């Protein structure tokens, strides 16, 4: 029985101070002598049109030559998928949007990310990222909160055969995710996430980001409430009284979650964003270790740029100390297990011992995957629950005299998901040339994927590798065959035969997700094939929910392929020649030929100065969009690109930005509902329209919505209030403001919605109306009778898309069911959330999309 010390946060709480510095960002400090308040490099969201979205642009100078079977469309889809990884971090306020295929000749002023294919890279490089800032960062000394990234460049090779980079390989995808992380302001970390170097990276295409990556981007671009739901630690790392700069401090849970941070020049550190949910439940060991020394080809330890002062003088890393778990032990079983809570930082100080450098570092681990006789090694791979498995690894400092284990070498698995079998550690020489160490690990029974860290000790030092392997509850997905077919409407489908496929599987055609249609009794999956041009060959991959992918076991073999024998013809788009001046919003119509516009369709205008605010697909070949052109946009022609699945079409020089016109009147999008503040207004409702360039009075001005005159007034804040006239069709409607002098004002679009849903009754689990005599309490089930929730086809929304707000608390709907015989009515069930105040009149609203009901009141009594 190992000794575990529990320390409760109440005994060592530290108030939340200043900015976090962890994970690691490019960091500046105001002065060379402290105080060391980290100032990171990041995009300035405030200058982005919607304060959230940074656009990335893919160069029109695509890669060539490509690997056999690869295509530019496939590469674009993988880039989109990789960008979506960062865009999907819920605790981050940053979103990434496809800005289109862009030309280097297009002048742009707003921040953005350029993905380029450029062989101006010497041999030895696969990809690189180049964030650009101002050179003079003296403003950091005057209290600046961050140094803005002006633009980032993600450079891939043009010749993708040079290093055999096939777009369907998991490694290509993870490289792009890694490089996107750099473009956003993340440096390397040592917690085995995607921002770890490829030596120790343990994430997969099925789960590209680790908790460390999520914390890193979330601390840089925090979504509201992010810190309130996560744990923090802070403290100092010192040798004697001297602080240690760039020591890596890692919070490691027994369940394998790891979040790291780096110390400041005075040794202080703070790590925020540590997950408190899941099987770790906020319990963490904490250890500190030096950065590995710079390897051949690296400029700094772990290739981490050291922090700089406001004059760009660097603070070099101190790598000369020992690794230890708190409190001052190399034995993780003697480490303190801290209980972290939201909102309070636990204080943890380390006193480390000076030494010349880490004895062990750069550990790379491998397990096996694939059918018997055809196994291939997978870096930081899976170990099946309840099985024994070989684990191979290399690590600097573990072998001496060419083939002997380092004195005192011992390897143990941290946490309870696996053990290293005693006596199995041995030296192994592969093919007479490559050194490995070999051990046998026992994966215990787990119910969910559990990353497992290894502790490697030698006589005088310790090394810890988070997520050295992952114990997984299910075997890896495998594809035996992919068979084309069609559904009842003639749409292309694919039947995927194989092993370990299920309803939780995600299927990719290149980088485009295929919608799951059916799980057959024989275990095969039927999916809809994402749109693609006829003749396209898409690599098919299955991702499991427990981090595994069907490609992991392929090794160097090629993946199964779906051939679009009956795909669409070559797609094309056209736009009416309607130039838009800088500083205005406007609607744009896009016509498509051989296109398949649907909910997956994304439009980009090839310039970071143009943002797509809203888009409506009104047919497979017609789209309407609202765009905003930035006020600082230079006059230029841009391309317009549209992607749907694996279809990509670009029209070069299709859109013209005109010079800004002082005094130009412009309606601003989106147009909001005065009641809900959401971007859709029902007939008879009041629309709020922001506008620029308006006079103080609208006397003589008129406004039409879908060609119908609307009653307007000018609000106190300069907003136009317009009543949506009756008789309009549901969907996008053109809004046109007309000046008395006939001046040209670009039209925009608004969404006209059906009337909002209405809640007419609420009953408890017994069917009794909820009132003061029959209140509900936490965890009770409530059934609401709601009218008008169905769409124009009388289809009810899925429960997951229904938003319920109970006394200010958002709550998921448990179910949505039709009421027999009442076409417009449905029953919605939800569970009363905790922490509601007792009240006889607690408001409840129901919403779907931008339609929100008026309040219905229920009694709550806990």
């Amino acid at each position: 029985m190992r000794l575990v010390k529990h320390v409760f946060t109440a005994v060592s709480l530290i108030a939340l101070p200043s900015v976090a510095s962890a994970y690691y960002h490019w960091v500046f400090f105001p002065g060379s002598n402290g105080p060391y308040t980290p100032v990171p490099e990041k995009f300035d969201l405030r200058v982005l049109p919607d304060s959230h979205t940074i656009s990335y642009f893919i160069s029109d100078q695509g890669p060539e030559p490509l690997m056999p079977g690869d295509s530019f469309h496939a590469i674009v889809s993988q880039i989109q998928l990789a960008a979506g990884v960062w865009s999907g971090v819920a605790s981050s306020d940053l979103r990434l949007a496809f800005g289109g295929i862009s030309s280097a000749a297009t002048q742009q002023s707003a921040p953005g990310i350029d993905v380029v294919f450029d062989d101006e890279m010497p041999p030895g490089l696969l990809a690189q990222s180049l964030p650009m800032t101002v050179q003079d960062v003296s403003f950091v000394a005057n209290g600046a909160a961050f140094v803005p990234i002006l633009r980032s460049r993600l450079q891939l090779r043009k010749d993708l055969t040079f290093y055999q980079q096939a777009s369907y390989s998991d490694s290509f995808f993870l490289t792009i995710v890694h490089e996107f992380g750099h473009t956003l302001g993340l440096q390397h970390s040592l917690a085995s996430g995607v921002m770890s170097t490829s030596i120790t990276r343990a994430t997969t295409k099925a789960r590209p980001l680790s908790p460390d990556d999520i914390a890193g981007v979330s601390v840089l671009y925090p979504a509201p409430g992010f810190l309130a739901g996560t744990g923090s630690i802070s403290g100092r790392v010192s040798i004697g009284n001297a602080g240690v700069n760039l020591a890596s401090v890692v919070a490691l849970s027994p369940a394998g979650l790891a979040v790291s941070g780096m110390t400041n020049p005075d040794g202080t550190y703070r790590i925020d964003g540590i997950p408190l949910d899941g099987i770790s439940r906020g319990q963490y060991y904490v250890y500190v270790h030096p950065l590995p020394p710079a390897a051949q080809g690296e400029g700094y330890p772990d290739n981490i740029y050291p922090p700089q002062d406001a004059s760009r003088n660097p603070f070099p890393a101190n790598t000369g100390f020992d690794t230890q778990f708190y409190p001052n032990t190399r034995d993780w079983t003697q480490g303190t297990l801290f209980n972290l809570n939201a909102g309070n930082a636990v204080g943890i100080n380390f006193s480390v011992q000076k030494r010349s450098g880490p004895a062990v570092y750069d550990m790379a681990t491998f397990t096996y995957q694939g059918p018997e006789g055809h196994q291939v090694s997978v870096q930081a791979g899976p170990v099946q629950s309840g099985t024994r498995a070989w684990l191979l690894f290399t690590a600097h400092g573990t072998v001496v005299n060419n083939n002997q284990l380092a004195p005192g070498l011992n390897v143990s698995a941290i946490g309870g998901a696996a053990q290293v079998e005693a006596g199995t550690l041995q030296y192994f020489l592969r093919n007479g040339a490559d050194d490995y160490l070999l051990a046998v690990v026992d994966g215990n029974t787990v119910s969910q994927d559990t990353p497992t860290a290894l502790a490697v000790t030698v006589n005088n030092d310790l090394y810890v590798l988070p997520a050295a392997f992952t114990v997984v509850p299910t075997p890896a997905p495998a594809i035996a065959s992919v068979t084309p077919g069609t559904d009842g409407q003639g749409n292309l489908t694919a039947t995927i035969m194989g092993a370990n496929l299920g309803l939780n599987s995600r299927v990719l055609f290149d980088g485009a997700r295929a919608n799951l249609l059916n799980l057959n009794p024989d275990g095969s999956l039927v999916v809809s094939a994402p749109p693609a041009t006829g003749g396209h060959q898409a690599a098919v991959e299955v991702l499991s929910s427990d981090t595994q992918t069907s490609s992991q076991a392929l090794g160097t073999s090629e993946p199964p392929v779906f051939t679009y024998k009956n795909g669409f013809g070559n797609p094309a788009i056209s736009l009416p020649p309607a130039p838009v001046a800088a500083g205005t919003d406007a609607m744009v119509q896009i016509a498509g030929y051989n296109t398949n516009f649907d909910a997956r369709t994304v439009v980009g205008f090839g310039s970071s100065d143009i943002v797509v605010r809203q888009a409506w697909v009104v047919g497979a070949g017609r789209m309407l969009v609202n765009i905003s052109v930035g006020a600082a946009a230079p006059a230029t022609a841009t391309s317009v690109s549209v992607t749907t699945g694996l279809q990509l079409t670009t029209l070069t020089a299709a859109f013209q930005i005109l010079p800004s016109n002082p005094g130009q009147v412009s309606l601003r999008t989106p147009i909001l509902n005065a009641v809900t503040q959401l971007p859709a207004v029902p007939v008879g409702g009041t629309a709020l329209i922001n506008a620029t360039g308006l006079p103080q009075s609208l006397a003589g001005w008129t406004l039409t919505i879908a060609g119908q005159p609307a009653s307007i007034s000018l609000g106190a804040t300069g907003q136009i209030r317009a009543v949506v006239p009756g008789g309009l069709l549901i969907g996008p409607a053109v809004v046109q403001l007309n000046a008395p002098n006939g001046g040209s004002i670009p039209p925009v679009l608004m969404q006209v919605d059906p009337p909002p849903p209405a809640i007419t009754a609420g009953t408890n689990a017994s069917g009794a109306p909820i009132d003061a005599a029959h209140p509900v309490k936490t965890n009770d089930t409530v059934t609401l009778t709601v009218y008008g929730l169905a769409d124009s086809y009388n289809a009810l929304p899925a429960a997951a898309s229904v938003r319920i707000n109970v006394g200010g608390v958002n709550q998921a709907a448990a179910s949505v069911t039709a009421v027999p015989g009442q076409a417009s009515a449905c029953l919605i069930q939800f569970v009363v959330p905790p922490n509601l105040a007792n009240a006889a009149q607690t408001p409840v609203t129901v919403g779907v999309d931008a339609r929100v009901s008026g309040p219905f009141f229920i009694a709550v009594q806990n």
Partner: protein
Amino acid sequence: MRILSMMLALSGMLSALRATTLQKLSMDDMILKSTAIVRAKVVGSRGAFRGQDIYTYYQLQVLESWKADGPQQREVAVPGGAARGLRQTVAGAPSLNTGGEYLFFLWTSRSGLTQVIGLSQGLFSVIQNTAGSAVLIRAATTDLMLDQSGHVVNGSAITMSLSDMRSQIPQVLKAGK
């Protein structure tokens, strides 16, 4: 339990280095893939845009050429740097010290830009050891770890003596042709 021979199925996954994203090159790779190998002293530097990217151009005084004769004054471009009030950073790009002596494995692209092969992989500092002989070490001199007696410890890797390198290069070139 899987048998040991299955390990022969190991794919070559150890070649990738950390960084932005590097592929590890062997010494033979660097000798063969470089377009020039020179021992040179850095005599100056400047930052400038090339297209949309900033490079730092280091001026070299060539002391010795070991592959492809060239001018005595050369320039090598390192991605990243400062120009026109802007700065670009590239994780892993080397920073050279003016006055420092290095061994460069250079690569010139079709467009004529000369860079260090493999970002920093093709760059070695030339220093004198305690016996007075010139030795090559990895260029990350800021990370050089010395023990108390001044010897380089594991990890910072003295690759070889300058004289050994001098004799190895023609052998590899001859074998590689």
